[in-house]
């Protein structure tokens, strides 16, 4: 951990939208780290599971034998899943069914709003974000705190030391995003 309530925030960097997080993280005075190995993981106070292709990430997590290491890390470190990352955190995944870490008691349907032609801009708490081939969350328990919805769908949720968003704030060039700030606060609470 770095001093003065500043942290090292990791982004799982096996595949996907990793580096756009850097300016958001650095704008909060935190340090950014791309995480590819068990060694990297030991150096971060919280981990972002970024946007990308969840199927690819699962294959690479298995190919590089990171599954057990991540399960152990997730037990007592803050984790924020974005889009594909949200899918990895789900209890069950549909369209199609696939493996997940089951960190939050929610069902997640992949590509639930449609293909790329249905990808769209949106504002969450006044901040422009994008939904890209986005998944849809159904909460299975009232314990999950819903920060924001798109129509009726929960799109930004928090549960215990976990956070998930089905949209992308990281590509918006106003630093830091409210979601990055919320994740920083989640890490601060845990420390």
């Amino acid at each position: 951990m770095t001093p003065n309530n500043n942290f090292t925030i990791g982004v799982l960097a096996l595949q996907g939208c990793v580096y756009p997080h850097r300016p958001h993280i650095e704008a909060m005075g935190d340090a950014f780290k791309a995480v590819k190995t068990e060694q990297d993981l030991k150096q971060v106070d919280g981990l972002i599971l970024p946007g990308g292709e969840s199927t690819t990430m699962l294959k690479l997590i298995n190919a590089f034998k990171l599954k057990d290491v991540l399960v152990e890390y997730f037990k007592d470190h803050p984790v924020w899943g974005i889009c594909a990352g949200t899918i990895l955190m789900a209890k069950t995944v549909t369209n199609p069914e696939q493996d997940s870490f089951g960190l939050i008691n929610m069902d997640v349907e992949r590509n639930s709003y449609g293909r790329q032609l249905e990808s769209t801009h949106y504002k969450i708490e006044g901040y422009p974000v994008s939904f890209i081939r986005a998944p849809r969350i159904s909460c299975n328990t009232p314990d999950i705190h819903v920060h924001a919805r798109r129509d009726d769908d929960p799109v930004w949720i928090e549960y215990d030391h976990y956070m998930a968003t089905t949209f992308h704030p990281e590509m918006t060039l106003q630093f830091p995003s409210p979601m990055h700030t919320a994740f920083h606060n989640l890490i601060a609470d845990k420390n």
Partner: protein
Amino acid sequence: MAKTDSNGNIINIKTGLAEMLKGGVIMDVVTAEQAKVAEDAGAVSVMALERVPSDIRKAGGVARMSPPELIEEIMKAVSIPVMAKCRIGHFAEAQILESIGVDYIDESEVLTPADEEFHINKHDFKVPFVCGAKNLGEALRRIGEGAALMRTKGEPGTGNIVEAVRHMRKINAEIRKVVNMDEAELMTEAKELGAPYELLKIVRAEGKLPVPNFAAGGIATPADAALCMQLGAETVFVGSGIFKSDNPEKFAKAIVKATAHYNDPAIVLEASKELEGVAMRGTEISELEEPMKMANRGW
């Protein structure tokens, strides 16, 4: 703030999907079964084609957009994004692909060009486009027309990486030159490159293309993928290199692994030992007849 293009379309929805594909491998497939093999191996996306580039070379004649039923079948078979190619300048093929609902259109020199003067006005479309380029001027012309993703052209279907390397190095060198220029020199540089001035200003300020930049054309091994990534490609397209190899499943998995850890020779080595077969037979570029040099198509 969200970036918008000249027609007010929000660019980051179009480039946004390309951001999600970074650090991955996009594989050419010609059937739903191949698409499943690609997805199971960890491809981030597939390119739906009637023939891979090496077979397009062999078949000769006019290469066109793939039949819509084939593309739809592939879209049904996998959950990852599906791309498809249209001919350069053939905006009616692009309209069909948009109506099918593909996730990205490749306005590609692999197919026979439909227009020898003009590319498609890609701002007219909601679906994002990827285009090939050999140099910075060509890349910025395509971005000016609305491309949301660039790739090297390489020399498709040859299994020979030399042209992709040439194009990647050329673009990198031209970007470095622009970054070091005095602002007063930019307009003349724009004139010489045939590049839009406003886009050249962005390149000078940011030190990179305004959209993601991937590698394509001739990638046949895990080492080829690692080479392109180390030269600055953000993802690789593999065309004939997987399904024209001895063992497509192993080649696909190994190239995915090598791309994820392109900077770690130990992992690229490990991936290279898992191929269990020989790479596609390559072609020396000088053996190609001039009209069959696909990289020279596009203007």
